[in-house]
């Protein structure tokens, strides 16, 4: 009978599914037969890069692709230090304000034409053109006339960038700048090719019109799915580039990309899911790299009780950072007792090591400071305190532990409030908070970018804390040509900051990776994504 046939089919299919559930696994499929290793690599960029136009990009996802397909006057070596890239030679004037760059003769665009000084002039002026709408234009404000032009007050002719001839680029700065070479490695300073860019708003979304000058060239962009780049044989340093093809998959779900790594669909993943961190820590493929940023709680120094410096310190001293890092995060973060993360090499050693730790956790001392602070202000008890953080599982776990530690060590009950990120940010920007979670990652590796966060006039500084000495030390550091003196000024500035402590530094971030043992020579940086210029697949 027909219905019995149907039924049997149905039961069989159900049985098949059930069977699949119980059978452990089929024999593993062995892949490696050939000794020739395909120089092809697949990794995970997680999300669609918002913009692959170097003049418009503002985020590290976009920068990951941009750093591979473009190259600026300076680039980074294996250790992340700035080295000359497209620039072959640099002359700096006596007063440190005029730079003359000579562009390499063998630097080419992916369409085979040479990269010229005019390409840089065009690119930078385009970023500064108010009509371009570049959000990162202010990273070029060090250049003379740049800010005025970008604000619509000056003219393009007055911008201090000029191609003297085909290969010579003259750049005039407002003042000497000790870290201009680091700044030049940033994507906002990359060149673009005028013929491709001008008049074509979509040039950067279509591989056909996407002309670049880096070690790789983009050959495919399937939105929200993958970006493919291939070796650029016109690149001047092409001989060191081993990989022929790199595919960036966009898989945002941590469990999914972790599984893809485990099945070999991905060769490199970052930001491992929290629940596997412990299990993977002893895996040889696991790597935790310090990341150039600080996780912190900022105070609103205009709202009680954090108007008082001793109360602020008491809160900071009562938190056990080791505990947070080792038992909650477990991803290799470093407890923070200052603002500038490790990773800045200075003539005297790492900036952080030279600066040392500015305070020690001490529950007794914290309690004493709190009492003193309250006495100074004439308070018998503290007002109700709220800690505002952005909704996320990780933030929540840390906030709860911090709440408990403050309660235990100071006897103060902190109320936790979480908000979705843009709402939280709106409240913090308007000063509607007492304590708020924030994070700050340096766009380039120099203490100045971290310390600028607390500048009196900085839009990033939501604490309300303004200190003239601090601001003055930072502005002195910016024009100081001598590196040793410059870092000294920055150490002094950080000390001023930590003496007043308008924030609780919690820890310096880290990045976690799993890298296939078949992949070698990947450069892991503290403030950029892994760089594949020298990477190689091995057997």
């Amino acid at each position: 009978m027909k219905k019995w046939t149907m039924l049997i089919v149905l039961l069989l299919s159900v049985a098949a599914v059930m069977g699949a559930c119980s059978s452990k696994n089929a024999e593993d499929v062995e892949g490696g037969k050939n000794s020739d290793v395909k120089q092809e690599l697949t990794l995970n960029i997680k999300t669609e890069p918002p913009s692959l136009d170097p003049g418009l990009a503002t985020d590290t996802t976009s920068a990951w692709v941009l750093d591979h397909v473009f190259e600026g006057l300076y680039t980074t070596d294996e250790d992340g230090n700035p080295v000359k890239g497209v620039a072959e030679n640099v002359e700096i004037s006596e007063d440190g304000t005029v730079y003359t760059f000579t562009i390499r003769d063998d630097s080419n665009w992916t369409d085979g034409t040479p990269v010229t000084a005019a390409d840089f002039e065009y690119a930078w002026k385009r970023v500064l053109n108010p009509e371009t709408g570049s959000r990162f234009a202010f990273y070029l404000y060090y250049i003379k006339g740049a800010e005025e032009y970008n604000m619509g007050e000056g003219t393009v002719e007055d911008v201090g960038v000029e191609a003297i001839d085909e290969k010579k680029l003259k750049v005039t700065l407002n003042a000497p700048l000790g870290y201009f070479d680091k700044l030049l490695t940033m994507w906002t300073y990359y060149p673009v090719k005028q013929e491709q860019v001008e008049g074509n708003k979509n040039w950067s979304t279509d591989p056909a019109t996407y002309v670049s000058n880096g070690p790789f060239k983009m050959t495919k962009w399937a939105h929200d799915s993958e970006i493919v780049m291939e070796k650029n044989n016109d690149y001047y340093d092409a001989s060191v580039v081993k990989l022929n093809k790199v595919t960036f998959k966009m898989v945002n779900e941590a469990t999914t990309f972790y599984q893809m790594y485990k099945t070999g669909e991905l060769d490199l993943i970052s930001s491992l899911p929290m629940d596997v961190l412990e299990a993977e820590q002893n895996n040889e493929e696991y790597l935790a790299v310090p990341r150039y940023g600080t996780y912190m709680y900022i105070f609103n120094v205009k709202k009680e009780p954090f108007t008082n410096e001793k109360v602020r310190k008491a809160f900071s001293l009562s938190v056990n950072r080791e505990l947070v890092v080792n038992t909650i995060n477990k991803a290799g973060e470093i407890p923070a007792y200052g603002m500038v993360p490790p990773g800045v090499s200075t003539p005297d050693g790492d900036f952080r090591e030279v600066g040392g730790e500015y305070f020690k956790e001490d529950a007794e001392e914290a309690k004493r400071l709190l009492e003193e602070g309250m006495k100074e202000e004439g308070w018998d008890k503290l007002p109700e305190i709220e800690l505002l953080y952005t909704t996320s599982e990780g933030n929540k776990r840390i906030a709860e532990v911090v709440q408990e530690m403050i309660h235990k060590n100071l006897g103060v009950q902190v109320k936790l409030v979480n908000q979705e990120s843009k709402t939280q940010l709106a409240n913090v920007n308007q000063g509607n908070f007492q304590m708020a979670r924030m994070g700050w990652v340096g766009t380039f590796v120099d203490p100045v970018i971290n310390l600028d966060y607390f500048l009196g006039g900085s839009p990033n500084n939501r604490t309300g804390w303004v200190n003239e000495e601090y601001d003055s030390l930072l502005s002195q550091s910016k024009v100081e040509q001598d590196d040793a003196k410059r870092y000294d000024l920055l150490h002094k500035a950080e000390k001023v900051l930590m003496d007043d402590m308008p924030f609780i530094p919690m820890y310096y971030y880290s990045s976690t990776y799993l890298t296939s043992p078949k992949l070698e020579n990947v450069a892991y940086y503290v403030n950029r994504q892994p760089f594949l210029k020298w990477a190689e697949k091995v057997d």
Partner: protein
Amino acid sequence: MYILKRLGAMLLTIWIIATLTFMVMKFIPGDPFATDADVYPEDVLQNLRAAYNLDKPVPVQYFLYMKDLITLNLGTSIVSDTRTVNSIIGSGFVASATVGLLAMVVAIVFGVLLGIVAALNHNKAIDYVSMVIAIIGISIPNFILAPLLIKIFAVDLSLLPVASWGSWKHAILPALALSTTPLAIVARYTRSSMLDVLNQNYMKTADAKGLSTYRIVLQHGIRNAILPVITFIGPLFVSLITGTFVIEKIFAIPGIGRYFVDSIFNRDYPVIMGTTVFYSVILVVILFLIDLSYRFIDPRIKLTSKEG
């Protein structure tokens, strides 16, 4: 006449949805350009707001948006400032619809089959087994089922890729994960509707005429039993083909499902509006088609404009 009136009502519906969304969207606190990374200088922000008309009063913004909407220009995304909303929806819809249609086919074919088999074996073991399967299908959320499917078919059996997009293989697991709940619901609807039909006199007549069970069920049974199911699959169809946040996220499908959610978190106003308007257009069109299809399935139903 009916169709004209209906089209008018459709446009009105879309306009109301768009207007309400616009208003609600403007009430959410938060600035699309606010970031806890690099904060842009105030002048830069002003340039940016001007570029998206955000410097103008809200009624003017609304008017400008509606003007663009009439010409089907949905604007440029604020987050991906090199992409238009039209292109985001255009490319995302293909992937979402592919998975959605596949899931739909699986859900209907197996759902109807399961429902009919259960109805024909009313109160027998097969009926119970089918309905237990249906209840499991409804109650297991797909964010549990999806990783389970990945674990079995991709990690353990290595039959299919874990996730991502590109070949037909990539569509199987997401379609399967997406289909279970609707499959179970379709099965339950079909079963109860079929049970109803089986008791009707015309079924007895057909049986008395000596027709085979096969023909009775196929010709007289399903055709009558399917109506309530169709009512249900209209909105289901729309929600499946316009993508689902969870499934697309877990399987890394380049669909538009994520934009419905992410755009709100990012305060990406043009994308919020674009996805909402797009969804409502699809919804009213499909509902309209469903109403039309009744007529063909059951000629007794008259399409009149009085039904409200």
